[in-house]
């Protein structure tokens, strides 16, 4: 199979997944395009190495790597300790305008904001699980962490979301508003 037909068969079907991941990690449409473009150039170089069944996690591994390379050269690093203590400090509540958060009440953007404000280490596993529906094993490969760490990071990502100040108003409203 030619390089072009392999590229069509193995990479292009996962372009939406790649863009969605890059967009959620970079949180900017133009940056996401740059990351995806870079990832595709890299994928093209190593097409021979991948089997069809593994193409999606393989390609997302490259997208994630391309994102972090872009991130390192464009933004100051986000430091989050991967331990239990990180949870409470992971979302900086003082940085969030309470009036703005309240304004979001009842607005479905609240959850979007909460996901977007998760620290990267939690955001990426949550996206790969809830949006791409990948298995823990696949996520472990993509993020290059043990499966046990995937499990604990996902549990923390969910706990963070449920406690997110972006969502708190809404959760309270839902709890009180239901019969």
């Amino acid at each position, binding site marked *: 199979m030619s*390089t*072009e037909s392999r*590229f*069509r068969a193995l*990479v*292009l079907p996962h*372009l*939406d997944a*790649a*863009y*969605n991941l890059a*967009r*959620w990690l970079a949180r900017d*449409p133009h940056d*996401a*395009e740059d990351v*995806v*473009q870079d990832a*595709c*150039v*890299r994928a*093209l*170089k*190593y097409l*021979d*190495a*991948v*089997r069809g069944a*593994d193409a999606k*996690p*393989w390609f997302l*591994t*490259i997208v994630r*790597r*391309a994102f972090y*390379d872009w991130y390192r*050269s464009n933004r100051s690093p986000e430091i989050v300790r991967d331990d239990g203590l990180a949870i409470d400090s992971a979302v900086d509540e003082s940085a969030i305008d309470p009036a703005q958060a309240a304004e979001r009440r009842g607005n*479905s953007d609240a*959850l*979007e904001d909460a*996901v977007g404000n998760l620290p990267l280490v939690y955001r990426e596993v949550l996206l790969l*699980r*809830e*949006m791409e529906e990948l*298995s*823990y*094993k696949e996520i472990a*490969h*993509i993020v*290059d962490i043990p499966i046990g760490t995937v*499990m*604990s990071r*996902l*549990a923390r990502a*969910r706990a963070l*979301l*449920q406690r997110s100040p972006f969502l708190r108003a809404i959760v309270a409203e839902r709890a009180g508003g239901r019969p």
Partner: protein
Amino acid sequence: MNCHEAAPLISAFADGEIDRVQSRDIKTHLEGCPDCGKKHRDILDLRSRLRAEVPYFTAPPALRARIGDLPRTTPTRSADRVERGRWRWLLSGALAGCAATVLAWIVGTSVLTWRANEDFVAQAVQAHVRAALNNHLIEVASSDQHTVKPWLSARLDYSPPVPDLSRDGFTLTGARLEYLAGRSVATLVYRYRDHTIDVFVRPESSGAPPSAPRTVRGFNAAHATGSGMSWLAVSDLNPEALAGFVGRIARGPDQ
């Protein structure tokens, strides 16, 4: 199972990632414990909200068009790609212009984090190193596939093909058995110039195979499936050549 034991597993249970035996225990606990039951429902509730309220961004058409043109607009497998951006530093060093080194470096930075079947690859590399150090690479020495194949079949519960790739410069030098991941594994030994290549051949059903090439302790590993087998090649040969070799060997003689 009590709350203390159940709590760390609820999230993974909601993802269907807990084995069947433990799942039964957790389910029983969730049904009987209002606190843990609520935690579980909250995760499912969060999931349906994520699917309903959080956008999935699809690739813009202009990006898709640009990416679709990439194979035609991007030269592949040549050293001139190195000139792009942050790879420029390579040109200034002794590595300049060496395509194989550039490729190895690219693999190192972008693909090697992809670690499928970590244990098996690590074990295979360890076996390769051990055999080379002890000068015990070969248990049956023959360049004849018709000698090596029956030797292996007589010692295994499967019968691995022994492809002849001498026309491509890969000479069969023999085979041995390795005990990896709980079973005996056929190990074919090939030579390419001054490189020794171990090929670990298992029936394709033996668990999820490793995928992209990677480097373990300075050795390269590349994997392919084909002819009903899972083929893992380990060598100090450069990753691109190794990946090409293992792809060809897996496809078998017909193609």
